[in-house]
């Protein structure tokens, strides 16, 4: 055969009727397959049993445990409950806070989780308090009432799709996805919110490695989690000896500092200022704004507290902060700002175990101060309030 100087591409178009049918069938195949995938994913991960098998120590597992524990607490504690939210620095002891309850009349409950931010708290609150009426107050713990952008941005933190994986609805997807600033994160968020198997991948693989072991641990955690968290005692390590020269960011570490202490001091406490882009302000306006909106016509107050800033306090003049979203929120009727200086007495190296977190002594003192500050802001408890002196958690 002598090849033509032109290929078949150059010849007149063949009838396309069958071609179009082929493409229509292919499109239908793909659409049906994607629909079947969504159904399968939904059956296994949305309404199926997998939620109850999540690794209790994973982000999604912790979210479930806290949610369940606090839902039960609502039934047990009556009318004057206060739910607190924050990241790992919001590490007060509820048992210590409860000791103040006879004087204040308020029970503080810890609904925060390590590594979370307002986006996760919103999804937690939505399921924890669906009618926006179960708490006297919601306490949101932040590191600053002013907005400071840091190198690591909350807005780009994808952990939300893992924490809240089981509770994200299809209708949440557009807002959640668009709340991430980068396209890479948006894609990740879209994929994990749409198909929960992506968010649970590591969990599933670990489960498949030893299903009986997982089931046993889940059972154990479900039974013991409220007591473990109630009885939790933090480290007694301190940062005594820590000093930071803020003009050079030179750190004098405590003698015998552990690698973890050095790491957290270097990366979080003695961090250099990042460019101020307004990302944090936008993030707070959006997600804290949504929480406030949920309680707009409710009896529940939204309280912001500023956490103890660290073992050594960063000078204010390191960064010129351009906005103060939380101070702006304070103008709204149901929003209260705690005394900014309420916890300053805790900002000492002997009360911190690392560059971020307080130690046992710090947490104990923080628990009492927090209860007192919340009570001061809320005023006397509801008239029908009655103390629950024999509550099992108080023992």
């Amino acid at each position, binding site marked *: *055969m*002598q*090849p*033509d*100087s*032109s*290929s*078949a*591409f*150059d*010849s*007149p*178009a*063949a009838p*396309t009727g*069958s*071609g179009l*049918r*082929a*493409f229509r*069938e*292919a499109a*239908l*195949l*793909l659409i*049906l*397959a*994607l*629909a*079947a*995938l969504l*159904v*399968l*994913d939904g059956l296994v991960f949305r309404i199926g049993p997998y939620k109850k098998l999540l690794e209790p120590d994973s982000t999604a597992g912790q979210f479930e445990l806290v949610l369940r524990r606090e839902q039960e607490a609502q039934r047990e504690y009556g009318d004057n409950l206060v739910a607190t939210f924050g990241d790992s620095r919001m590490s007060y002891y509820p048992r210590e806070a409860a000791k103040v309850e006879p004087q204040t009349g308020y029970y503080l409950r810890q609904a925060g989780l390590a590594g979370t931010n307002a986006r996760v708290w919103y999804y937690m609150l939505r399921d924890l308090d669906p009618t926006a009426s179960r708490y006297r107050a919601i306490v949101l713990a932040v590191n600053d009432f002013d907005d400071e952008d840091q190198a690591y941005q909350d807005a780009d933190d994808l952990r939300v799709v893992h924490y809240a994986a089981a509770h994200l609805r299809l209708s949440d997807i557009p807002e959640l996805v668009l709340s991430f600033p980068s396209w890479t994160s948006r*894609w990740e968020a879209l*994929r994990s919110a749409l*198909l929960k*198997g*992506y968010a*649970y*991948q590591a969990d*599933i*693989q670990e489960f*498949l*490695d*030893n299903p009986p072991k997982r089931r046993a641990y889940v059972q154990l955690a479900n039974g013991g989690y409220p007591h473990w968290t109630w009885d939790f005692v933090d480290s007694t390590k301190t940062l005594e000896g820590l000093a930071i020269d803020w003009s050079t960011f030179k750190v004098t570490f405590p003698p015998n500092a552990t690698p973890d202490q050095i790491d957290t001091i270097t990366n979080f406490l003695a961090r250099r200022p990042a460019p101020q882009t307004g990302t944090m302000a936008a993030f707070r306006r959006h997600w804290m704004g949504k929480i406030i909106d949920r309680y707009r016509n409710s009896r529940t107050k939204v309280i912001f507290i500023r956490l103890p800033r660290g073992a050594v306090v960063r000078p204010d003049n390191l960064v010129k902060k351009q906005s103060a979203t939380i101070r702006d929120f304070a103008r709204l009727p149901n929003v209260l700002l705690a005394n900014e200086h309420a916890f300053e007495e805790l900002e000492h190296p002997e009360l911190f175990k690392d560059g971020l977190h307080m130690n046992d002594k710090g947490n104990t003192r923080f628990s009492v101060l927090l209860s007192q500050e919340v009570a001061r802001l809320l005023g006397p408890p509801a008239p029908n309030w009655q103390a629950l002196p024999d509550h099992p958690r108080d023992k």
Partner: protein
Amino acid sequence: MLFNTVQFFLFIAAVLVLFYASPRGFRKYILLVASYVFYGTWNWHFIPLLLTLTVVDYTAGRLIEKSDPRRRKLFLILSLGVNLGFLGFFKYYNFLASNVSLLAGKPSTWLALNVILPLGISFHTFQSMSYIVDVYRGEQEAILDPVDYALFICFFPQLVAGPIVRAREFFKDLLHWQPPTADDISRGIFQMTIGLAKKMAFADQFAKIANLYFGNVAAHPGGAAAWSGVFSFGMQIYFDFAGYTDMAIGMAKLLGFHFPENFRRPYLACSITDFWHRWHMSLSRWLRDYLYIPLGGNRHGRVSTYRNLMLTMLLGGLWHGASWNFVIWGGYHGALLAIERLIGRFRRQPVRWTVASWLFTFALALVGWVFFRAEDLHQSRQVLGQMFGNWHGHTLLTRWHTGLALLALAVAAIEEKFDWFEHLMTWPLAVRAVTLALIFFVIEVFGVTDVAIPFVYFQF
């Protein structure tokens, strides 16, 4: 642009839309531009090299066809010289230089140059050379339209890692192009999805273990760790390469091209000869037609046959990479093929498939992978020492990795016995859609997305 990335799927979607929305006359230009764009996303600096080889071989093809026998041979030699010259320089210069340096008692880097290996050079030079040889032999007419020839060399689905397509197969599709049928499209979608699952859910999962093991052999002492590390690499390389090939074949089908099969469940082989009939079939075919048979094949007696087998496999090994490890890997397989041939002379019947023959062949293949994957000869010796000299230690495979391997084995065995894929293609649309959804689900749950693991054969 890896095949298993969002960027690539956006790229292929754009190409398909542009391709089918354009008048027929534009379509091959769209494929050509898309192929250069695809190649350029890796390293556009090598596009001139690709163009040079295209121009040289296109011109050589035309000249060979038009010339008298003496000049034909000259043009053939010139063309092969240019192809092998480029391949030799980019792929083997540093290997040769380091060996010459060591022989001269100098450091191995004495004559070294900072040479970057152009992506897919081993594949497209082999494809070019097969075309030139076919034209020289009179088995293929020279292509008249340079755009057609350029597309043959750089067609993006198989540009970087094959399958190595023969000119007559490619031009049959190109010159007599027909829109894909519904069956082609359905197969194309399935093959792309199955390929993606092989890569992301199987190859990359096992790659994590293989990389862990070969990244620090000393940290994982004992035979159990060694066998599990090598087994993981065996799984990785098969699923990785077969996954890539499935995607390439599937993509080509969506564009109306038909590539040859490249893998046929090689780990179910019952002998090494059988293995090479199932593994990287387009390379095996190339080596047979352009090396083994020209060397004399089995036409000149037993000794010459064994020599030709050995030479073919040694060069096949070296084709994979410029290191003694690949030469040994090729030699190892050459020796096994020769031994099987020798044993076969005393057998009345061919080797029958039994569990024992299958397991033995699989184990032999795994031993060969040690040379393929190890950093150098020292590490190969270290791993083999652990595999055969130390029965202690712990396996690196978790239970679910074992489950994944067993799942793959079951799917392969069912396919081998019942040809389920062919049956599936005849089933109603809804059943195919559910099957496709199940494959998507496997990717969703097991697909590695936290790290980008490049295709193994991209380095060749």
